[in-house]
């Protein structure tokens, strides 16, 4: 491997590869936005980027600091309301959303509300924001986060945002739109999907330089290891060049890796 890159650069690159041309994605600030920009500048020029606060398909001049700041509508196709973006999601027009969270469980449920008792929380986090909506209403939820046993836990304190809930058909039975749900979890160790029947997290691909033991050593629950799984191709020089020179020249995001 001739080219050096950090975990943040790796995760952004993998995430970008998951956004096919012609797709519609709702992104937040940071990693998701960087991944979407990288995708647009590589294999997916026709990727439509939305921001939940109302920005539609801007020509992003720089990384937004807020999902509602003026960069999110710069030379955009539409500047609208949060309700209209959410209604697009509800109507089935949006393929992907990108989320993170303080905790994630084996069914892809996310916690960004509280650690500890709800009424006397040890730690209060922001709450759902748009996460619950995007995960409920877009077709596929992508999660990007570094992996640790504390974050990957079945002792999730609060289900802020739905994954497959209790697994199996639970999600659809709860009334959430058919055919939606968690799709990929992209970490510094590997890329995970969900078992078609049980809806529990399972390995899809290992990151370069990782061994399969890393997967469950860094998870509080058991991630299924199928007989066959792939290896992530390392970021190409071209991907890294565009990411570093065009997407995030000030290293606001990739500098954290």
């Amino acid at each position: 491997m001739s080219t050096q890159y950090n975990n943040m650069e790796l995760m952004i690159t993998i995430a970008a590869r998951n956004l096919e041309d012609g797709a519609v994605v709702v992104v937040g600030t940071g990693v998701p936005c960087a991944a979407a920009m990288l995708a647009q500048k590589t294999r997916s020029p026709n990727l439509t980027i939305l921001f939940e606060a109302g920005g539609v398909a801007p020509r992003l001049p720089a990384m937004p600091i807020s999902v509602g700041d003026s960069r999110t509508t710069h030379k955009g196709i539409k500047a609208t309301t949060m309700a209209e973006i959410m209604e697009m999601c509800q109507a089935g027009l949006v393929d992907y959303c990108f989320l993170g969270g303080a905790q994630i469980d084996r069914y892809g449920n996310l916690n960004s509300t509280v650690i500890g008792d709800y009424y006397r929380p040890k730690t209060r986090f922001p709450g759902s924001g748009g996460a619950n909506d995007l995960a409920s209403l877009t077709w596929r939820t992508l999660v990007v986060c570094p992996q640790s046993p504390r974050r990957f836990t079945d002792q999730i304190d609060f289900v802020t945002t739905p994954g497959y809930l209790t697994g199996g058909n639970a999600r659809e039975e709860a009334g959430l739109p058919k055919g939606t749900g968690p799709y990929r979890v992209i970490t510094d160790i590997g890329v995970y999907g969900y078992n078609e029947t049980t809806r529990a997290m399972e390995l899809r691909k290992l990151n370069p330089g990782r061994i399969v033991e890393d997967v469950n050593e860094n998870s509080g629950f058991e991630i299924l290891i199928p007989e066959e799984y792939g290896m992530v191709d390392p970021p190409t020089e071209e991907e890294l060049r565009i990411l570093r020179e065009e997407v995030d020249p000030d290293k606001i995001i990739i500098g954290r890796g």
Partner: protein
Amino acid sequence: MEELKTGRGEIFTEMDSDSMRNYFRNKNKKLVSKETTVKEAVSQYIGNGDYIAIGGFGGVRIPTSVLHEIVRQGKKDLGFSGHVATHDCQILAAGKCFNRCDAAYIVGLEARGLSKHARKVFQSGDIKVTEWSNAALSWRFKAAAMGVPFLPARTMLGTDTFEYSAGKEILCPFTGNKLLALPALHPDVAVIHVNRADVYGNCQIDGIIVADDDIAKASKRVIITTEKIIDNEEIRNDPGKTIIPFWLVDAVIEVPFGSYPGNMPGEYFSDEEHLLEWLSVENDEERFVEFLEKNIYSCKNFNEYLMKNGGIEKMRKLRRLEKFI
């Protein structure tokens, strides 16, 4: 048939459409000037215990001057909707102004990090919180704006966000499918900062609207701050651009740079240094008290706050940041 669930959260605001209709019937709908001062508007239209909705998006197009005045006048026991409440929530938390909150996004400042002080307030157990998502709060405002007591949606189902909300599961009367019913949210007061307004309260907004069209319609009273006052003829020359019409509005105040330190689309970018300073002083109780004294309590008005943070030269820089991104 399985039992339909109800969230355990509290509804903080008026639910009855007929009561709200009576309220709106009696609003003054004459085309009269509503120009006033921030001080007067806060004193006249915001009472202790009121439930307020704040326009914009936390750190974008926020009515900072009114938020500071609320703190300065020591308003207490407010309720508010935390529909991506970031710096606005942080200001109100600094003044310990509220005791209940419909929360979708609170205590954080998006990519900038979390507000230590706002978290402390919410972790104290003294604040009643009902959980929602961003879309849920948007649609709650929309229900109120439409004059119906609820709207159906397909979000929040199956999660703890629902469990701690005040939503209800219902079955679609046509398809039988499970849906979420969201109760209308009628705030007592909306406070919204806009790009341009005439003295009657007709408002134009550049960039995203967030939920401010619906918030203005949902609220009993509406306070508008505006970057500039324009002539009514300008409104009439482009009626497609009016987002908030005059009959909803109770007070109009011209406050240039009124979203500072937030971003104002088309006008100026956010002052990230000042926002980071604010986050940083929250780590030290003494510095935080001094900071609030300097930036809010000792200021006789919003201009003084702007002057203390770089004045015209700083505003010029933020304008350039916005215009030449």
